[in-house]
């Protein structure tokens, strides 16, 4: 299509500026994380990387004392992975099943149960945080992976997504399957699930990122630092930055920040197409 040379030029300029706007903070954090703390303390944030990347990153990955706690970044990364994967897997399975029941079955409690699920959209976790904490504490699930993951799954977003998708599946498929003698469970496993694979992948990616990036809930219910996710680890490190009268350990804190960011960003960028497809489908 026709574009004047000026328009093309301004387009590229604007987009480059936009990309820089997004990337600058992260780049500065990364560059600053590769210097010693004395250097940062004296010279402020850096644009250009220094030579201490291996030192800093190695230290926080393997040395618990580097993060002022008893846990290494590696262990925290592991916890984040468990949270991200567990949350995504749990979400996908439960929402798929619930959406299947709602869309494909006529049963007595269908309508009230649908509205119960819908109601979870009205009271996000942040708002019911205190009683949620109490419930989990009473169940003895504080400082457990289960307690970390389960309460987060109790929301309707995934279910609505699959509900929408199932409604778009042609009825003829079900009719043909019935003629072929497939019962409801068979139909689900043999036909619907394979059909949903791209959707499942898309939702999985989104939920993995959501799970990995959880903040408030893990903050509250994990007091045992063996269970810290890397996002929580960052907060703890920053809290203790100015303690002890020593030069603040900025580079290591930045390194932790970068490490908390890389995995979800990589996932989102590598699986871009699927991710965007999943995200945009939720609009319709």
């Amino acid at each position, binding site marked *: 299509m026709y574009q004047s040379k000026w328009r093309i030029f301004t387009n590229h300029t604007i987009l480059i500026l936009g990309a820089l706007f997004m990337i600058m903070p992260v780049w500065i954090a990364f560059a600053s994380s590769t210097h010693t703390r004395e250097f940062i303390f004296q010279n402020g944030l850096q644009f250009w990387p220094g030579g201490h990347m291996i030192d800093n990153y190695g230290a926080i990955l393997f040395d618990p004392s580097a993060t002022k706690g008893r846990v290494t970044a590696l262990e925290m990364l592991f916890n984040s992975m468990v949270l991200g994967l567990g949350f995504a897997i749990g979400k996908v399975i439960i929402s798929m099943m619930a959406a299947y029941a709602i869309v494909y079955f006529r049963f007595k409690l269908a309508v009230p149960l649908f509205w119960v699920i819908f109601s979870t959209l009205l009271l996000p976790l942040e708002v019911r945080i205190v009683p949620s904490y109490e419930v989990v504490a009473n169940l003895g699930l504080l400082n457990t992976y289960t307690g970390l993951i389960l309460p987060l799954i109790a929301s309707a977003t995934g279910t609505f997504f699959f509900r929408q998708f199932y409604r778009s599946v042609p009825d003829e498929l079900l009719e043909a399957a019935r003629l072929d003698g497939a019962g409801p469970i068979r139909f689900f496993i043999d036909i619907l699930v394979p059909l949903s694979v791209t959707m499942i992948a898309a939702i999985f990616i989104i939920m993995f990122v959501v799970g990995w990036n959880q903040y408030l809930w893990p903050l509250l219910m994990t007091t045992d630092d063996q269970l810290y996710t890397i996002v929580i680890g*960052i907060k703890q490190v920053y809290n203790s930055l100015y303690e002890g009268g020593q030069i603040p350990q900025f580079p290591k804190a930045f390194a932790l920040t970068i490490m908390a960011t890389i995995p979800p960003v990589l996932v989102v960028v590598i699986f871009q197409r699927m991710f965007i497809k999943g995200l945009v489908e939720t609009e319709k």
Partner: protein
Amino acid sequence: MKRVQFEHSAVPYLFIAPQILIISIFFLWPAAQAVYQSFLLEDAFGMSSQFVWFRNFEDVLSSASWSRSAIFTVIFSVLVAVISIAISLFLAVRADEVIRGAKSYRTLLMWGYAIAPPVAGLLGNMMFNPLMGDLYKAFNSFGFEFNHIQNANDAAFVVILIAVWKQVSVNFIFFLSGLQGIPKSVQEAATLDCKSAERRFWTITFPLLAPTTFFLLVINLTYAFFETFGIIDVSTKGSPGGATATLVYKVYVDGFIGADLGGSSAQSVLLMIMVSVLTVFQFRFIERKVHY
């Protein structure tokens, strides 16, 4: 509703049970607790509680700090929504037009979704750090007396900037997708009818993007209301003096840190009412009616 459905007794219950179970334990029960506690007042020692009907609500609604927080939340949310929508729309239009490097630009602009709110808050904190933050230095060197630790407006500026920065990616993705949904031939016809690209945007592109824009408005308002907790907690922590505490943040501060269960539960209930209104609005006017 599907035209064809199974009639079956046990299977649907089986399938829906896990979600219902989890919802009951981890949502319905805490939600009911929150509502119940909003009607209670604990004594000074937390030993007994008294049923006080709507007194907690009265206290909350008449408290200055809640009003201030509510006003801040509204202004904050509207500004974050409008600014990040404007920026991302601006970027998306250009990204839709370029041919060379289209995929690269898209990649460079969409990854912000993967950033955790606390990480965004941290990066903002870093950039505005009085000791070494580049933006802190930059603003002060231009003659503004920038002090977000003590000045409420400067602090608000910081959290708004951070929240906008993080949200641009999501809006960008949706706008780009919306733009790509406009038929190319319609855009070409517009090229023949109208020489100015700017005018074409406002008369043709923007009206056709209206559904996406409304949708994003709701999404962004919701984001600003709730998902910015992480940003605030790691940057300004609501200071100075609660000036940058959104309503959600205040629930946390009062309830968890201040141990005012009754008050924070009442705030939760009020928030729940506000969300319900937003959600109903979203489903009614933007998506087709939610019906079984």
